[in-house]
């Protein structure tokens, strides 16, 4: 039926780029910590040299998070309302779970780092395991926050937390490889062997492939979906969100690094690997932008 809307209220977008950055930082932190735990928790000995740096790096990334989150609140002094159990905190709200995860995860990481520094294998393993679970939970909940809004149709998807976790894994490794390469450059010696960085990029490659598989499934679902799904599909491929989603996430963050990492000549060259890592790490921010702001933009017109 034809027609047009002549008057309507204008609704703001309630979350913006800082919240997308928060998702990105938490993801980067979780991904880095997974690498850190490989050596001391899961027994992959060649990753032991990066464990201490990666764990501290993950903690550092997570330290920025509360600043963003608290400033974003309308009433920043009241952030502790999230932690007041049982009087204020509302357990059915995923944000409360997240508040506890964000609080406990860095503590777990710091204790783990301490035992790694002390070379205490047993305790590092116990606290590393705990911190890995918390790392996954911390990023899982960000996906759940977006997922549990039935009216935001593309976000209301059970694959959302897995997509978030895969993005975290990929961006975390990407960031870590890039920063460790920078560290080598500034130290003017190989603190971490380049062969190890190249090995890490292989792990990133598996994440990229899995991420693309998930996105393909999302694409399929959208093409067979309702009109709102079609609108979203148009927006991310040709419309308003083509820059963050299509160009930044898909082309820059997934397809180009995939090409670099599957061509043997490039995937064995540290400069190409670092470039692919940088692309991956920054590209995931595009996905965060779309997930945080896409549906809010669309539904703001109703």
């Amino acid at each position, binding site marked *: *039926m034809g027609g047009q809307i002549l008057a309507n209220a204008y609704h*703001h977008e309630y979350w913006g780029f*800082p919240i997308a950055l928060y998702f990105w930082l938490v993801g980067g932190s979780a991904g880095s910590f997974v690498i850190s735990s490989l050596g001391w928790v899961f027994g992959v000995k060649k990753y032991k040299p990066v464990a201490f740096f990666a764990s501290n790096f993950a903690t550092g990334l997570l330290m920025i998070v509360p600043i963003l989150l608290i400033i974003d609140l309308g*009433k920043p002094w*009241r952030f502790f309302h999230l932690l007041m159990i049982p009087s204020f905190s509302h357990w*059915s709200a995923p944000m409360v779970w997240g508040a506890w995860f964000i609080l406990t995860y860095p503590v777990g990481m710091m204790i783990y780092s301490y035992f790694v520094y002390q070379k205490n294998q047993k305790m590092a393993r116990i606290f590393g395991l705990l911190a890995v679970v918390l790392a996954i939970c911390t990023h899982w909940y960000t996906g759940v926050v977006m997922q549990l809004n*039935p*009216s935001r149709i593309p976000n209301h998807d059970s694959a959302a937390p897995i997509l978030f976790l895969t993005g975290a894994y990929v961006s975390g490794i990407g960031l870590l490889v890039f920063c460790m390469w920078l560290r080598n450059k500034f130290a003017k010696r190989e603190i971490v062997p380049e062969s190890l960085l190249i090995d890490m990029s292989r792990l990133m490659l598996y994440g990229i492939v899995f991420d693309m598989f998930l996105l393909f499934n999302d694409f399929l679902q959208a093409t067979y979906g309702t009109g709102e799904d079609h609108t979203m599909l148009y927006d991310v491929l040709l419309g308003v969100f083509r820059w963050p989603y299509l160009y930044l996430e898909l082309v820059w963050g997934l397809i180009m690094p995939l090409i670099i990492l599957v061509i043997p000549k490039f995937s064995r060259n540290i400069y190409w690997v670092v470039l692919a890592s940088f692309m991956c790490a920054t590209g995931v921010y595009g996905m965060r932008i779309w997930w945080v702001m896409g549906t809010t933009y669309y539904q703001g017109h*109703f």
Partner: protein
Amino acid sequence: MSERVYGFNGVSPSLGKKGRRRYAMVVDLRRCTGCNACTSSCKTSYDVPLGDWRIWTMEAETGEYPNTKRQVLPRLCNQCDQPSCIRNCPTKATFRHPDGFVLQRYNRCIGCRTCMVACPYNARHLLTPHRRDKRNPRDVADKCDFCIVRVTRGLAPLCVTSCTGGAMVFGDRNDPDSEISKLIRNNKTFTLRPEMGNEPQVHYIGLDGPIADPEFAFHQRAEQVHRRENTFKRDNELGGELGGDIIDTEMDFWGLMRHIGRNFKTFFSAAPNKFFRGPY
């Protein structure tokens, strides 16, 4: 089957329960003239900031010439029986009153805006600092509360009182003799977005066009509405506190960079004001 209760906060829905009231509203669109008396009375009485509404009217022109029709749809909080805002509120700032009102406690709200993201009706807004009376709450979520302060004193909500066409009817659905119960019994009524499962309690009579369709509202915006929205977004000074409004005509690469820069700039420049004007 056990009763469905959203979240762990508040009371169960009162609809159909003996000894309890369930206040609801019927909007008879056949009588609505789109005069906006409801909007203006609400806006002035509650000091609703510029750019936010507790109640507003959508207007659409539908059909093909010469068979066109002007449709008006007053929109407000639906005071749902299963409200997703309550479930998602992390601090129990939003709760349900035993008589069916969905209310907001300003002193608990942290302004995280989760409830706004969760609401399928866009019925919530953040109270900006730009209010006439500086003692009024600011930077917390707010919404229509069915004028509970008036209803508990035996008065009808302001929008109902001011409705020039007598289109809005308010009352207790659990009372079979109330006007609203009779209207719902004797007419075919509709609610907005019933598929969301929120069980809204604002019922419409004569809602027969595409105006209630979010897709229509998005795709069929008139050019001047589109332009006005973008102008408002570009000129508003609230970006830092309200997240990133997207001006869709400027979303090329440099536009995206500008959006990010502008959002972060306002985000950080609003921070001192939020922190240093006092904790509450």
